[in-house]
């Protein structure tokens, strides 16, 4: 079947098997291997992307179900060489070690801050409770998201 899926604002048209998962559709697109394919059981959260602004686990969405929807991946965060505040926060607060969970963490964090610009530590921990970091850097990840929240509120509102 042929599908058209908008990824980071660009329509991708491709002939696919109906059973193809969204995570594989994304990763099979040149330049978009930032989204990670982890547990494949909707537990680990490495594959989280945004679908119409909401974080979803792309290993548990069929590519065909994303037709007509707006997908946003980790590659969309950096614009013209400027890191998104959540990326900068992960850098500043050492929010990653091996980096495998990072794309999902970043997209989950981005969606959290878009909905709630000043989340408490508890709200952050709830938001990322569907994402597993096996380097166990949760404390640093929480600090990284707080860093982003503080620096975003200080800067101009994001468009």
């Amino acid at each position, binding site marked *: 079947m042929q599908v058209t899926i908008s990824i980071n604002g660009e329509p991708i048209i491709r002939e696919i098997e109906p*059973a193809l998962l969204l995570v594989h559709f994304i990763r099979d697109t040149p330049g978009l291997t930032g989204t990670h394919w982890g547990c494949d059981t*909707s537990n680990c*959260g490495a594959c989280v992307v945004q679908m119409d602004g909401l974080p979803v686990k792309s290993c*548990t969405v*069929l590519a065909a*179900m994303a037709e007509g929807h707006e997908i946003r991946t980790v590659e969309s965060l950096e614009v013209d060489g400027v890191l998104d505040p959540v990326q900068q926060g992960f850098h500043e607060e050492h929010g990653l070690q091996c980096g495998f969970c990072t794309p999902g963490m970043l997209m*989950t964090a981005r969606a959290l801050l878009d909905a709630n610009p000043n989340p408490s530590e508890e709200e952050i921990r709830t938001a990322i409770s*569907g994402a597993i970091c096996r380097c166990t850097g949760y404390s640093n990840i929480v600090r990284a998201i707080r860093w982003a929240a503080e620096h975003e509120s200080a800067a101009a509102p994001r468009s």
Partner: protein
Amino acid sequence: MIAGGHSLLPMMKLRLANPELLVDINDLEHLGYIREQDGQVRIGALTRHYELLESELLGRHFPVFADAERVIADPVVRNRGTIGGSLAQADAAEDLSAVCSALRAEVVIAGSGGERVVSMEDFHVGPYTTAIQDAELLIEIRIPVRAGAGSAHEKVERRAGDWAIVAVSGALWLNGGTIADAGLALSAVGPTTIHATRAEDHLRGKAPSEELFAEAGAIAAEDCRPTADGRGPVDYKRHLAGELTRRALRRATERARGQEG
């Protein structure tokens, strides 16, 4: 039929489900709503978990929903999963089936011949089996709004976001100082959601008290049918069934009293 897909796709990956054809119903956006109508709260089958959690209307009438939603999977999964999918999956360990059973909900099933309304009691036919026939679709959940209501959901899980070891949904409707009606349903302690009807009968017409809740808990623990598995042995699950029944009734009563006052 695929909605949120967070039960069906994992089953397909495990080859437990092998559909030849999938119909994606996510575009039926008119099936996503929560509204009050004709003395009922009506919930469209395509309403997502996060919408149930955030609903002010549900929070006011049936706080049991928010209790359950906070412990169903994780926030990202809750962005996709739907109430219709949860009920139609009919997993005995699933939380919303217990919530809807305790609240005496009815479901609306639509087919080419029209619509029919089925009680939760008749909806659960067996493990992973419901009253929905071929070429039919679950479209709405209806919950009667009655005075003096209080409700709560209690769950013990191995880790955050896991399926329940045992979960209990409790609802009661107070009239003056007595329990006019009670609803009790248990998850993960039988082949389907367990309706604790004998415990409900025991509660009806009596004044709420710790002793009464303990008695109802003992009856529910006796009437459920847990099996030993990786989540624990039978006696532990029966113990949880009793204790969680007590806790759910205690909290439901506090809420009903808050609402009355």
